[in-house]
Structure formats: structure tokens, C-alpha cells
């Protein structure tokens, strides 16, 4: 059984300090939903309000049609995975996984068989009699997941579950989690500050900053059409260039010194104004006929790609440009290059950074 989560006008205060206010959110049934943002943005606070470990100062939280504000965490039927796994160190792997079932009126036989089922599902059945201190980080993570899922919760809540693992294991566990969620078909709310992890794992992501949801969307939306400058810079890397938006015969251009570069998908009624252009490193490409001229300042070879730092004519700050590494030599510093830009990928933000002028 999985549920749809609805949050209306959520309010969280610590003393007089308001951390979250007026937050609305709907999470679909069976969806893998991620709360993403820098530390202190309120994502964990929100997750713990859903779980019931943080008090709710205002607003309504629903699982389907059931209002859960005043329910104890123990009766919300949630599964929770913690950043430090929170494995009970005094109980064996088997007893850890069975713990939640022993709190329900379930027969011993049933407990054993359900515990076994999830131990197998998480591939930790061979460790069932071990104590947690003799498990690796990845194995502990699997125990934590099995323990959360075995009670057949309505929602699976995860608070930065992978941040204590090393990079390789993190990637591996990422797919383990995604797989399991898919198999069980459970609604899942996942908190992370790692945008790459969020993109890899989520159906939809809510990007949060300072207690406010900046944008909700699929990973592709967030990357390609961020709704404001914060999202553009938080998700992946982007070059931001302060420039002017010009309208010539109903075609829009941005100014690079003497040169105007065309941009696409801007509504006709947008006025000429100062703007911030956001152009990701891979949206520039070397082009003999390119209009934009620049000088290579430095380069970094990273295997698949080579990154160049380039000073463009008429642009104050240097920009980063990514090229697939070629078998030829790396372009030497101080070379003059000509560039073009994939115009349909450019995002143009109002000068305050709060809205995206590009529409699809």
C-alpha cells in the first residue's frame, strides 16, 4: 500500500525563528520524490515533519485523505532510513530487521518469514546472525532499508542515506534503492544535498532554498529549464553572463561586446532589458564560423572531456567551455578561438535572477 502525500501551507518555527512558511507540496502515489537543496535549506526539517519527529506549527499534512498532523510517528506507518542508519548496535541483523514487526500483533512464524523475505531481497540473509559492528557501511545501509521496508509502510522516508558511504558504494546503493522502490512500488521521499544523486534516483525533485521550494520538476526540466538563477547554478555548473536582451524584428538577441547572439523561445511581449544569461559549459562549441571570439586562458584534461577557461571579447568574467577530448593536442593557452552557442539551450533570467524569460 502506498499513499499520496499532500502538504498545505506548512509552517515550521523554532522559537521565533521561522524556518519554513506557507509551503505547499503534492507527492504522487508510488513516486520517487526528492527534496534537494544546500544544507540549512529546510529539506530535512520538512522530511521530519512528514515523519512526525518535528512538531508542525501550522498547515495540514495528509496521507491520502487522512490528516496526520497529530499522529505519533509510530502510527503513521512510515519507514524511515537515517543518515547514520540508526542500526540498533545491541541487536543482531535479524533482530534489527524484525524489530518493527515485534511491535505489531503478528505471529512469530509470520515475523520470521517476512524478515527472511526482506533479508533476501536486500541480499543480507547470510549476515543475519551478525552484530551490526561487524558489517560494512553498505551492508548496514541494506539492513536499515530492510528494517524500514519489512513493516510494509505507506511511505518510505530517507534522510541523506548515502552521504556516509564512499563514492563507488554510493553509486551502487543508488541503484539498489531505486530498484527496491520500483519493486515494492512505495511512495518515497528522499532528502539529499547531492544534485547528481538526486538526478540519478528521482522521478521528480523539489529544489529548496531558505525554506522555500524554488522549483518542482523532473531532473530534465530542472537542468534544461531552471525556473530561476538559484536552480540554474545549484543543478550542475553554468556560466552566468550579465548582458542585455535586445529585440530586433521580433527576434531576440543578447549582447557580447559588439556582437549580438540570437536566443530562442522568448515570448514576443518580453521587453528589452538587462538580463543574466545562463549558458552551460557544453552549450558552447568551437566553430570556424562562430561569431563569438575568445582567448584560451587555461585548460584541464579530465579524460572524457577537456575543460577550457576562456576569456570572451566583450564579457568581463571568463567562462568555462567543455569539449569532448580529441586525439589531437589540447588547444594551447593564449590561442584565439571562435565559438558558437546552442541557442535553444540558453536560459535568460531577469536581472534579479528570480524568473526565467525563456519559454518552451
Amino acid at each position, binding site marked *: 500500500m502506498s499513499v499520496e502525500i499532500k502538504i498545505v501551507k506548512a509552517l515550521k518555527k523554532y522559537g521565533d525563528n521561522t524556518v519554513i512558511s506557507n509551503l505547499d507540496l503534492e507527492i504522487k502515489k508510488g513516486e520517487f520524490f526528492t527534496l534537494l537543496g544546500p544544507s540549512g535549506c529546510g529539506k530535512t526539517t520538512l522530511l521530519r515533519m512528514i*515523519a512526525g519527529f518535528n512538531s508542525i506549527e501550522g498547515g495540514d499534512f495528509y496521507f491520502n485523505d487522512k490528516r496526520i498532523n497529530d499522529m505519533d510517528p509510530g502510527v503513521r506507518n512510515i519507514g524511515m532510513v537515517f543518515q547514520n542508519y540508526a542500526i540498533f548496535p545491541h541487536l543482531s541483523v535479524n533482530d534489527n530487521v524484525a524489530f518493527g514487526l515485534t511491535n505489531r500483533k503478528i505471529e512469530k512464524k509470520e515475523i520470521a518469514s517476512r524478515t527472511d523475505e526482506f533479508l533476501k531481497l536486500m541480499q543480507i540473509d547470510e549476515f543475519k546472525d551478525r552484530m551490526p559492528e561487524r558489517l560494512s557501511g553498505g551492508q548496514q545501509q541494506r539492513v536499515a532499508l530492510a528494517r524500514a521496508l519489512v513493516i510494509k509502510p505507506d511511505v518510505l522516508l530517507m534522510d541523506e542515506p548515502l552521504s556516509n558511504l564512499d563514492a563507488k558504494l554510493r553509486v551502487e546503493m543508488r541503484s539498489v534503492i531505486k530498484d527496491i522502490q520500483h519493486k515494492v512500488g512505495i511512495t518515497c521521499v528522499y532528502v539529499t544535498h547531492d544534485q547528481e544523486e538526486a538526478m540519478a534516483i528521482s522521478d521528480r525533485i523539489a529544489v529548496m532554498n531558505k525554506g522555500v521550494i524554488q522549483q518542482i520538476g523532473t531532473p530534465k526540466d530542472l537542468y534544461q529549464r531552471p525556473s530561476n538563477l538559484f536552480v540554474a547554478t545549484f543543478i550542475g555548473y553554468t556560466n552566468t553572463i550579465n548582458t542585455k536582451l535586445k529585440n530586433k524584428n521580433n527576434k531576440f538577441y543578447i549582447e557580447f561586446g559588439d556582437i549580438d547572439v540570437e536566443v530562442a523561445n522568448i515570448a514576443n511581449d518580453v521587453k528589452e532589458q538587462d538580463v543574466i544569461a545562463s549558458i552551460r559549459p557544453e552549450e558552447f562549441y568551437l566553430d570556424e564560423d562562430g561569431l563569438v571570439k575568445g582567448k584560451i586562458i587555461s585548460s584541464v584534461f579530465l579524460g572524457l572531456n577537456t575543460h577550457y577557461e576562456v576569456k570572451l571579447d566583450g564579457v568581463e568574467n571568463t567562462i568555462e567551455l567543455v569539449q569532448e577530448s580529441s586525439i589531437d593536442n589540447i588547444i594551447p593557452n593564449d590561442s584565439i578561438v571562435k565559438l558558437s552557442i546552442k541557442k535553444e539551450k540558453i536560459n535568460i533570467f531577469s536581472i534579479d535572477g528570480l524568473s526565467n524569460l525563456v519559454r518552451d
Partner: protein
Amino acid sequence: MKNNHKFKLDIWGIITLLVVVGYILFLIFPLAMVLYQAVIDKNTGEFTLAYFSKFFSEKYYSSTLFNSFKVGGLTTILSIMIGAPLAYFFTMFKIKGKKFLQILIIIASMSAPFIGAYSWILLLGRNGVITNFFKGIGIALPNIYGFIGILLVLTCQLYPLIFLYVNGALKNVDNSLIEASQSMNVQGVKLFFKVIVPLIMPTVLAGGLLVFMRAISDFGTPMLIGEGYRTFPVLIFNQFMSEVSGDDGFASAIAIVAIVVTGIIFLLQKYASNRFSFTMNALHPIEEKQLKGFKNIIVHVFSYLVVGIAILPQVYVIYTSFINTKGLLFVEGYSLNSYKQAFSRMSNTIVNTFLIPGVSLVIIVLVAVLIAYLVVRRKNTLTNSVDVLSMVPYIIPGSVMGIAFKIAFNSNTIAIGGFALMVIALVLRRIPYTIRSSVAILQQIPMSIEEASISLGASKMKTFFKVTMPMMASGIISGAILSWITLISELSTAIILYTGKTRTLTVAIYTEVLRGNYGIAAALSTILTVMTVISLLIFMKVSKGDGLSL
């Protein structure tokens, strides 16, 4: 954790209220009674400050305040001067037989101070073994009685506390700090004063406070070896207990002065250690070095000498317990006669020595763990006040606690029996230490473990007993054993509250010493020491060599 737990009348709310009621009844009420007696004239029933003016105007009384400060201050300074360098040597250098010395230090610190006092009398007193030996070769040793004796006994008894505290702090100093200093050519004595001393300063202050409090509130030592050098607790005891001139009002006034003084010192120490405090955590603890030549000899001589002096009284008491006695005198030959006599007089003393501290211990552990949980996990105004209340007995001298209980619960209105009274007094006196150590243990356990349990549907109580308690268990047990040791060697409260039926081993030893039955006293002391050593061995087994915190 943020202060975000409003008071709720759930199971923890009820426990909070019960604890508050307990403290009001057994702490606030007796202290209020002491204050009441101190400012109300017994005959007229009117408000009076006469008792206080009597205390401060007559030098005979007020000098005890100065005497106590002198004893406390000098004991603290000497203890730090011996204990801190010893801990430094033990951490920095290889010393032969270090483990053995460490165990001796712990034993010395755990024994009852008045046993040390009486043993020093046997050694250095008018007819002491060492005194007579030097008299034989024509050297007259200085008089052990009075201030010098008290200072000697208390320093020997209390420098081990500083040693244990500082030793613990030095374990948290990272070796890289030492190496960094050495790379900048700061070495030896300079290293000690420029780097080590500032690092261990908060610990030294905390340990110093404990030493000072113990020194000024110790009752047995000045009573036995003071001979007219009167300190505070002696005065309170005499005023309260003496049948001829017993004056409850005056004793109460002195008690109030004592509480105010220790309270001020406690606050000063707290202020000072807050200013110095910082956290350390050693990734690589200091490695001990092998010293060579002259320095090596000095370090060894110093270590063995100070440990030897501290343990000497214990050893000598054990030795004398096997000497034959005739009447009050030790005579030639060895036997177990003292033990036989001791056992014949003990009646229920042994039972009491297990029963009273035993019952107290169970209550202490249970209540301390509950309070610690409230303080750490349910922060709100009410639990904060429980925290403060529970620390109050820390600054109240044992004898003051004794008379407060006697005044409050010996009247006709509220009468609580001897046994219960002694248990409650012991619980109150020891619980601050157990709460502090439980709080420390609890803070190490991440909140999320309990949340995991609750999210899996376990109730609050089930979470506490099935998850939190088992995780705290090893820390609680080792703390309990230490409490046990201090409880069986407690004297200053017991001496005021005991009755014929509730005589404990320490009270028995004390009375036998006063009567001059040194053989029996020695036998009883040996029994107490053996109990202490066995408890310590169990402690070391349980805590697997973890640091000793008091």
C-alpha cells in the same frame, strides 16, 4: 537539539513531575527547615539573625571558616602540584610497573579519608612507628597532629583524583600537537607549561573543585588528627550532636554559611571553566617515550615515592590488622584475633554495609538514568530545573545533609525511619555524579536510533527499555560500581543519621578508632579495603580499561 519539547503529560511528563515532587520533599523541604531554624529563635518564634552574628562575631567559631579554607585551598594546590605532573609523566614516558602503580593510585583515592588519618597516627603519631624509629636515632619529627596532619592526610587522599582527571584529559591530547610544538623547538618543561597546561586547564579546574569540596567537607580527618584544629564540619557536628550544648539553631546557621560558601566556589569554578573550555579528541594519542639516564631516574623516583606515600596508610592498616592485641595495645606476634573480635561485635553491620548502599545504588541508577534522559532528550523548563535541583547536593557538605535530614524528618510530624533516611540521603548525595555520567553516555547515542525505534511502532517506554537502556548499559554498570565504592566508604552523613540498627562499616571503624580499639578498627578497615579492591577489579573488567571518571 533545540529546546523544542513543550511539557506534555505523557509518560515522561509524569516521571518529570514525580522527580520534582521527590526533590521538593527530600531536598527543598529539609534545606528550608535548616534555613527556618537558622533564622527563627527557638524560644520566642521570632525572626532573628542572632545565630549568624554569634558565628561571625566570636573568633572561636568564625575561625573554623578560615581554617576550612586554609585546609581546602592548600590541599587543592598541593594535590594539583603532585597529581598533574604525575599524570604528565605517566602519559609521556615509559615507567616500569605503570599499570600496577595506576591501580594503587585508584585504590588510594577510593578509600575513606579517615582511615588514612588514623593510619598516619599509627605511623607518625606520638607513639607512631616511624616517630619512635627516628626518636631511637635521636631525631625528633614534627608534630603530626593539627593542620599539618590534616593537610598530609587529605593531600595523599585527594591528589589521586587530580591524577585521574588529568590523565583522562591527556588521553585526548593529540600527539600531533606535541610534535607540532617540538618542530617549533618547544620542548621539555617549556612544552609542559606552554602547551600541556593550557590544554588540561579546564580539567584541572574541575578536578580542583572536586578536591576542594571534598577537603573542606571532610569530617573524619580533622576529627581524628586535627586535635583542636577545628574546621567547619567538625563545628557543625559538635554543635548539633553534643548532648550538653547541642544547639540546632546555631548548627543550622553554620550549615547555611557552609552552603553559601561552597555554592559561591562552585559558581566561580563554573565561570572559570566555561571561559577555558574547548573540546579535544585525539586521533593519535600521545606515545610514551623511553627516558634515559638521570631524567629517567628522577621520573621513576618521583612516581614511586608519591604513589608509595599515598598507599602506605592502607598497607599499614592491613598489616596491623594481623598483629596481636592486648586490650588497646598492639603486642608481639601475629594472629587473626582482631578479625575474630571484629566479627563478634559486628552483628548487623556487615549486612547494613551491603544493604544500605545496595538499595541506594539501585535507586540511584534508576533515577539518574531517568533524569539524564529527561535532561538530554526532553529539554524544557521543568526538566532544566530538575537538572539544577539534582546538582544542588553536589555543593552541600555531607554533614550538612545529615543534620538537614535529622531536623526535617526526626520531628513528630514527619518521621522517616533510620534505614529509609540513610538510603535517601545517600541517593541524593551520590546522584549528581551518576546523572552527569549518564548524560555524557546519552549524548553519545544519536537521537536517530530512538527515532528509528519509534518510527517502527515501538512505544516510548519500550524504546527506552529495549533500545536506549541496553545501549547505555556498559557505561551505567561501570558508573554504578564506582558509586558503590563511594557509598560503602561514606562517613559524614552516616555518622549523623545512623542508629543502632543502621550502623555501617565506616561508622563502626570510626567508633572503634575513637575508642582506641585499633586492632578491631584495622580488621574492619581491611575488610572495607578488600571490598573496595574487589569492586574495582570488577569495574576494570566491565569497563575494559576505559577511563575512570568520578
